[in-house]
Every structure is written in structure tokens, then in C-alpha cells.
């Protein structure tokens, strides 16, 4: 169905509502005339009923015309998804229409009342006597009351019919529209409903003959019908307003439900009264909350770039030495780090560290740790000397409140061997892989930042051709396999044992990490870093 056809369908819904409302109005006017005015049905059929019915037809088509004029294009725009129209203009048109209809209906009704009674006077059908004007005023009062009630009914019905379209616009913010209060329609509707209920009984009682027996049945019939109808109209209006409020409550519940949709959906504004303003205020708050956390996340992404730059972007190249390193943070930023620094033509330092904690706080200490390490390494000394100086610096900076583990390996490559000087501050022991045999190389002390006077000692060894030095952080062991269990040291050693001198080390490292998996669907539970260094055992070409 095209947008035009769908729009026409909605307009016909409005037309049906107008016909129904006008029929109800005509029914009450006729009831007034029969029960209260004492006019017989044949008399009414002469002029009154044909006039009312023809008025209804004219009314219905006038209202239809107004509805088509005001709503056809906006509905088509929404249903046909036609672009180029400001949604705020459509919103404005939809939101104002019920009140326009209310006033339009009221004014047209007054026009018809004047026309009817004027024609009755001018044609001589009504004889103008001194009491006539009082009777006319009462009659017109009752008719105006019915007209107001019908206007309210149309206001309610049009609000109801237009709500889906207003919701589809998904307005999140009120503009400069005139703010209204729902108290006004409630107060007006109650007054009109009460008046129609009261005046019907009043007119019946005033025309009752004291000489005849009191007709309780007629009183209760009239009172019942009018009061019931008035209460029904009031009920419709109140529950229509309540529906707007329920919409907000239900959307909030839906958002709060963690199994439901995203948390960032706004509450659509469907009115200009308190419920609309409430949705507007909530949407603004939600927007600010989301924006503030988006800003934090944006900063995390920028911080990731900074941290990436802190880590070595390119590894120093030594002939016959192959280095592979990988650092994976479980959040955007983290506390794992490594560094590979050329110290001399045949000396290099390899460091790997793990700051306690994860995320932003760990990243702050990690950057400080890397900076301190680089500054201390260039001052020279053994691995133990460097870590001892760094430990004092860390203790002075963090005042014993944070700590980090660090393993530092200093390599010196000669023609015949690769000498290794290693010191550790609480870091997990590295492995030496010699001919497929993994050998844990225990060397440990307290982590950095705990005690400034702790003596740190290093150990030395030599790597033969094809031997691999493997350092890692504890996040590797804490990686969870498919069953949700942490991989064991045995598994890790088994994987390291698969490393061969024949394959590029970088590729082997990537494959190794793939084999270990990434904690199933939940991603990494901890940062993890691995550094591998292999000396191929050939004379260096400097």
C-alpha cells in the first residue's frame, strides 16, 4: 500500500469517529427534546431531526475536510517515509490537531446552533414571547454543553488516533512549543461532564408536574444515561492522559530490564503537557549521562594510542637474533608491558612487566614504570643493579601503595654465545627452551614498589644456537580454555616446547596464542604478554 492510500485509511478512521460522535450528540439532543422538551417524535421528524441529521452530515464532511487539510500530508510523510520534511513540523501539526479539532468543533457547533434557532425565529416556527428567550437560553445552554462534550470526545479520539504517528516521529526534545498542563483539560472536562449530568436532571425536575405522581423511573433513566455518558467521557480523557504516562513508565521499565533492548533509547514525546515535559527532561538527562561516559570511552581509545606508543613500535634488529613480542590488554588500556632496548652494538635489554590491577589505574603505573625503566637502563649496570635503582624510584613515587613485577634480561651477543644476565622483581620465572625441552628459570624477589632496601640479585647463563628465551606475564596462565578452566603451567610448557628454530618466531607466537584461546566469548580476563628471543648461534655481522 502506498503512503497516500495508508494516509487515506487513517483519515477515514477519523471520519468514522466524527460520525459516531455526531450520532451520539444527535441522540442526546433528541433525547433532550423528547424527555425534557416534551416534543413528540412526529413533531421532531418534521424539522428537528432532518435538520440535525443534515447538520451531522455537513459537520462530518467539514471535519473530514479540515482533517484532510491538516493531516493528510503529514501522515503521508510518515507512512511513505518521504524525506525532506522537518519532523518537528510534523510533530507540531500532530500535537496541535486535537486542540484545533476541539475548538473547531465547538465553534462550528455554536454556528449551527445560531443558524438553527435563528432560522426557527425568522421562519416563524418559534413564536417569540417574553418567556421564549429564557427557554432559548436554557436550550442553547444544554446544546452548548453537548457540543462541548462532543468536542472533548473528539479531542480524546484524535489524541488516541494520532499517538502512533507521534510516537513514530520519536521526538526526543521539546522545542519552543507552548507548554500546556493536563490539568486544564481535566478541569474543563469534569466541569462539562458535571454540567451535562446536572442540567439534564435539573430540566426534568423543573418541568415535572407537582400534581402528577413523581416519576422516579424517568428521573433515574435520564440521570443514569447522562451521568453514565458524562462519567464515561471523563474516564476516557483521564485514561488517555494516563496512557501517555504509562508509556513513559513502560519505556523506563523496558530500559531498566537488562535482558531487553539497549539502555540508550529515549522516551518518545507524545504531548506538550507534563508527560511530554517529563520525557523531555528524562531524555536530556539520559543524553548527558551517555555523553559523559562516551567521553570517558573516547579518552580510553586515545589512551590506547598513547600506550601503544609507549610499547616498542619496532624491535631493534640484531643479526641472527629473532625477537617476537605480543601484548594484549583485556581492557582498552592495561598494566602489562614489555620493552626491548638496544644498549650497544652487541648488547640489548629485554624487559617484561605486570602492574597490579587492570585498566586505567594499571595503565598509569605502567607508563610510569616504563619511563623509569628506560631512564635507569641507560645509566648502566647489571640487571640486578638496574632493578635495584628502579625499585627505589618506584618506592619513592608510589610510597608503597602500588607494586609491579618486572623481569629484566640483559643480552650480550658474542661470536660463540649469547650471554644472559637476568633479574626479576616478583615476576613469573621465564623459560629457556633448549632443543624442544622447556626449562623454567627461577629467579625471584619481591615486586617493585614494596621495599626500597630489598636486595635484588641476578642470575646468568648462556644461550646456545637455536635456544629460545621466553618471558611472559601471569595473564597467560590465567587464560581460560573452552571448559572455563585456567590453562595450567603444564599446558603452557607443552605449548612452549612446540616452538622450533625452523619457523619464524613471530608466526609461532601468534599461533601459540591462538591455540591458547581468548577466554571463550567473554574475552580476556587479564592482560597477557609474551616476549620470545631466539639466538641462531651464528657469528654476528656488525
Amino acid at each position, binding site marked *: 500500500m502506498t503512503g497516500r492510500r495508508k494516509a487515506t485509511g487513517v483519515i477515514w478512521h477519523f471520519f468514522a469517529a466524527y460520525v459516531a460522535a455526531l450520532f451520539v450528540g444527535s441522540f442526546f439532543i433528541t433525547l433532550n427534546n423528547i424527555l425534557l422538551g416534551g416534543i413528540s417524535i412526529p413533531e421532531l421528524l418534521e424539522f428537528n431531526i432532518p435538520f440535525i441529521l443534515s447538520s451531522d452530515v455537513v459537520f462530518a464532511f467539514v471535519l473530514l475536510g479540515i482533517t484532510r487539510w491538516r493531516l493528510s500530508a503529514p501522515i503521508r510523510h510518515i507512512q511513505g517515509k518521504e524525506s525532506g520534511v522537518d519532523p518537528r513540523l510534523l510533530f507540531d501539526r500532530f500535537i496541535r490537531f486535537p486542540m484545533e479539532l476541539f475548538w473547531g468543533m465547538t465553534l462550528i457547533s455554536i454556528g449551527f446552533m445560531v443558524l438553527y434557532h435563528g432560522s426557527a425565529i425568522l421562519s416563524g416556527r418559534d413564536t417569540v414571547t417574553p418567556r421564549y428567550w429564557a427557554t432559548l437560553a436554557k436550550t442553547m445552554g444544554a446544546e452548548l454543553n453537548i457540543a462541548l462534550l462532543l468536542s472533548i470526545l473528539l479531542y480524546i479520539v484524535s489524541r488516541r488516533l494520532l499517538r502512533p504517528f507521534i510516537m513514530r516521529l520519536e521526538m526526543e526534545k521539546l522545542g519552543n512549543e507552548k507548554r500546556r498542563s493536563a490539568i486544564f483539560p481535566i478541569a474543563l472536562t469534569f466541569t462539562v461532564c458535571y454540567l451535562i*449530568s446536572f442540567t439534564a436532571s435539573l430540566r426534568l425536575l423543573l418541568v415535572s408536574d407537582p400534581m402528577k405522581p413523581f416519576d422516579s423511573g424517568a428521573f433515574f433513566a435520564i440521570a443514569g444515561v447522562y451521568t453514565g455518558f458524562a462519567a464515561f467521557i471523563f474516564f476516557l480523557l483521564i485514561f488517555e492522559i494516563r496512557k501517555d504516562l504509562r508509556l513513559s513508565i513502560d519505556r523506563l521499565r523496558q530500559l*531498566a530490564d537488562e535482558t531487553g533492548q539497549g539502555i540508550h533509547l529515549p522516551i518518545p514525546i507524545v504531548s506538550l503537557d507534563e508527560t511530554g515535559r517529563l520525557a523531555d527532561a528524562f531524555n536530556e538527562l539520559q543524553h548527558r549521562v551517555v555523553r*559523559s561516559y562516551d567521553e570517558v570511552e573516547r579518552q580510553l581509545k586515545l589512551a590506547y594510542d598513547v600506550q601503544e606508543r609507549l610499547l616498542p613500535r619496532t624491535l631493534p634488529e640484531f643479526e641472527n637474533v629473532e625477537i617476537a613480542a605480543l601484548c594484549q590488554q583485556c581492557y582498552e588500556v592495561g598494566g602489562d608491558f614489555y620493552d626491548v632496548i638496544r644498549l650497544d652494538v652487541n648488547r640489548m635489554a629485554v624487559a617484561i612487566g605486570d602492574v597490579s590491577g587492570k*585498566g586505567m589505574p594499571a595503565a598509569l603505573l605502567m607508563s610510569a614504570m616504563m619511563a623509569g625503566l628506560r631512564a635507569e637502563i641507560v645509566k648502566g649496570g647489571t640487571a640486578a643493579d638496574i632493578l635495584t635503582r628502579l625499585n627505589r624510584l618506584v618506592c619513592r613515587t*608510589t610510597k608503597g601503595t602500588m607494586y609491579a613485577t618486572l623481569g629484566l634480561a640483559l643480552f650480550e651477543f658474542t661470536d660463540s654465545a649469547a650471554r644472559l644476565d637476568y633479574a626479576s622483581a616478583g615476576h613469573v620465572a621465564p623459560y629457556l627452551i633448549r632443543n624442544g625441552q622447556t626449562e623454567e628459570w627461577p629467579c625471584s624477589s619481591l615486586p617493585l614498589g614494596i621495599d626500597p632496601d630489598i636486595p635484588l640479585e641476578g642470575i646468568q647463563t648462556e644461550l646456545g644456537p637455536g635456544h629460545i628465551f621466553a618471558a611472559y606475564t601471569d595473564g597467560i596462565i590465567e587464560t581460560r580454555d573452552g571448559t572455563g578452566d585456567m590453562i595450567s603451567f603444564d599446558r603452557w610448557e607443552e605449548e612452549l616446547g612446540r616452538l622450533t628454530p625452523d619457523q619464524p618466531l613471530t608466526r609461532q607466537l601468534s599461533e601459540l596464542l591462538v591455540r591458547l584461546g581468548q577466554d571463550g566469548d567473554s574475552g580476556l580476563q587479564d592482560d597477557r604478554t609474551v616476549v620470545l628471543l631466539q639466538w641462531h648461534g651464528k657469528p654476528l655481522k656488525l
Partner: protein
Amino acid sequence: MKGTAKTMLRLCGAYTLLGAIVLAGILLSNRFVSNGSWDELLMRWEELALSYAVILTFLFVFTFYRLGGTSLPEDRDGDERSENRLWRRLTRFPSELFIFYFCLGVIISQLYRFLTAYEPHWTSAQWLEYGKGSMFDISTFGAFAAIHYSCARWMLRPHIRELRVHREEPGRFRSAAGSIVGIAAIGMVYMQLRLFWYAYSSHETGHSSQLPVLFMIGLIVFAVTYSVAVLMSVYLFRDMQRLISRFRELSRLGRGAMLSRIPVASPYETGELAIAFNSLQERFQREYSRLDQDLELAYHVQEQLLSDNRIQLGGWLATGECRRPMEVGGGFFDLRAIKNGRLILVAGRVTGSGLPSALVMSALLMTLRSEMKDEASTGQLMTTLNRYLMDFMPDNLRVHMGIGILDTAGYTLEWALAGDMGMTVHREDADWTAGSHPVPLGQLREIVYGGELILVGPNDRIHLHTAASSVNFCPEDGTADKVSVSAARIASNEIPGRRQSP
């Protein structure tokens, strides 16, 4: 919860006042609607007064029974359950009062009718009279119960709003819309019954209905019903207006405070809305808890990375201050004593904001401390730091920084400034202001910063701060950290205070 006793007394006063109005209404109704004579009215006055005194006594007892002991202790921390209990009691009370008043009124009026008109065998006319009277009693007490309901709700609202109830079972909420429609319907039915009763009585006595009396019935019932029904709507929308204001207030607060919950002040739709909102706030908190915790921890880590904000050496006291608009940022200062009575004063900030700047700042601070040798000079330190920063700093970040080395014994100040930094020596006669090198750190690798030396007097005060002029304090935006370091001689008996959080 102060003033609950006062509210109970006010409620009792309101019952008495409403009772007087009801009595007057019944007497007037008897006179004008039922066409009773003044003699009959005088006869009924004592009976009615006695009956109403009994009703009032019961109402007082009921109110004190239901609302007595509802005060909360002054210390309400962690007492959420008792606040919830109290909330339920206060929100239920108007409905309980409605039911109690209605039932009590009907029972007493029935007793009265039986006591005054009982005969072993009633005629059909008597049964009819009894039926009409009972119908009248039911509608009257229903209407007045609604007025008492509205009155109690109005008086208890301030106390309900005082409670810090943030969650409640959804089933405990009622529909204000239903109550408004119910009250309107009761009003209209009551008006019809009164009209009928008056017209019927008039007709039975051979009179025709008087228009002024009919109008008066309509007007009085309208006034009362309108007041109650529209007042309930006003309550509902005023509660909504409060929620709107609260949402707007929260929007203006900082990130953490924006997720505050709001107290549930109503047992109707607005209360339900507050509950749903609070649930959503909890979900927001859960979703963002990692970020919030991380930020809080990062704040503490960065605080630890900064040096103590006070240091005393050779009669000089140096203090540092860093004000951040966010939890973490690029502002830093360092105060360090080195050999030969020298005091290093450092202040600066990494451009940008938040964590990226903080990461650069922490790396810079660690390098600075590692390079702060006893024989350090300001220009050399600055140059070394610049080269180090060039290795990793993103292109969009810079470091504005100033270093001063104060010789507390020799009364000299060596200084070097880079970027948008300011240093002023406040003297008794005139202030001296240092010029900054225009290029901040991290912009040019090969730049060499030079240090300069000035003499300082014992009464001079040194002030090193970010931004060269206060006019241009935050050149990028309002989110830049503001850092300053000051040094001045102190009197010998002045004891410097402990470290304070910036």
C-alpha cells in the same frame, strides 16, 4: 521524621472541622432539601452531635493507632527497610481512612436508624424510607470519606517526600487516574441522589422543586467534587513536575551524581515512574561501574604519583597544588630536595584532558625523577625530557612545563620554562616575571632549552604556574588542569601542615 505528631494533631483538627461542616450540611439538607421544620432540626441536633462525636473519637483513635510510632530516628543511615515500612504505612493511610470512615459512618447511621425507627413489623413505606435513608447515608459517607481521603493525602505528602525510599514492589502502586474517575463518579451520583431526594420530598409534601435549592445542591456538590478530583490531578501533575525538576537538576550534575536515585514520593503512577527510573539508574551504574571504579582508582594512582604537596628546606617552604576538572588529567608538580640545600620546583601540564594526558604525565614524572641528579641543571633536564617525550608522545599532545632550582643557602633561583608557563617572583618593591620558551616539550626533537639564574631575597615569594597569564589560563578549553607551585621563606616557629589532597 519530625512533626508526625504535629501532623496527627492537624489531621484531628481537620476531622473536627470537616465534621462541623458535615453536621451543618446535614442540618441544612434536612431543612432545605428534606423540607424539615426548625423544631425537627433542633430535635435532631443533639442526636447528630452525639453520633458525630462518636465518629470523631473513633477517627482520632484510628489515626493515632495507624500513624503513632512512625517517627524515624535521626540517624537514618542504612535503615532502608524501616523507611520502606513507614512509606507503606503513610501511603496506605488515606485509603485506610477512606474505608474506616465510610464503614464507621454507615454502621453508626444504621444503628441510629434502627434505634430511632425500629418497630417489630415495618410497613412497606417504612422499608422504603429505610432504603432511601440508607442509600442517602452510603452516598453521603462515601463522599465525605473521599474528602477525608484527600485531606489525609494532602497532609501526609510532605512526610512521604521526606522518606528516602528508592525502590518498592510494583504491586504496591495504585492508579491516581482510577481514583480521580472514581471521585468524579461518586460526586455526580451523589448530586443526582440529592436532587432526587429533594425533588421527591418536595413532591410528597405537595411542593414543586425550587430552582435556587436545586442550584445550591448542584453547586455545593460540584465545588466539593471538583476540589477533590482536580486537587488529585494537581497532586499527580505536581509530583510529575517535581520529577521533571529533579531530572533537570541531575542533568546539571557531574557524571557520578547524574546516576543518583530519586525518592519515591507517591503511591500512584508518579511513584511507579520514580521506581522505574531508579531501576534504570541502577542499570546505568552497573553498565558503567567498571569505568567509574577505574576512574576512581586512577585518580588515587595519580595522586600517589604526585609528590607531597609540601616540602621544607633551609627555612623555605614549597607547596604545590593541582586542580583537575576530571578525575585524571595531565597536570603535575614535583617538589624535591637535592644536595647542597637545593630545592627543585616543577610544575606543568600535558595538553588535552583525561587519561591520555595522564599517561604521558606519569611517564614524564617518572623520567623526571630518574633524571633529577644532584648536579642537575634546569635547561639540561628540560632538554632530556623533551627528547624522551618525542619518542612516544602522540602528535596532538604537548607538555607545558617549568622547572626551578632554588638554592636556599645561596639565594639563587635557576629556572627554565617551556610553553605556556608563568613564573613570578613576588618582591616587596616590584614583582619580577620570567619569560617562557615559546616551544613546549614534545614539539621539536632537537631543541635545546637553556636555564637562567636570578637572585632571590629572603622575603621573596616564588610562584610557578601553568598558563603565562591568568587571562589565558586554559587556552584549549575549560578542561585543562591548573597547576601551581609556590616557595617562600617561613618563620622558624611556623610548622608546615600535613599533605592535603589537591
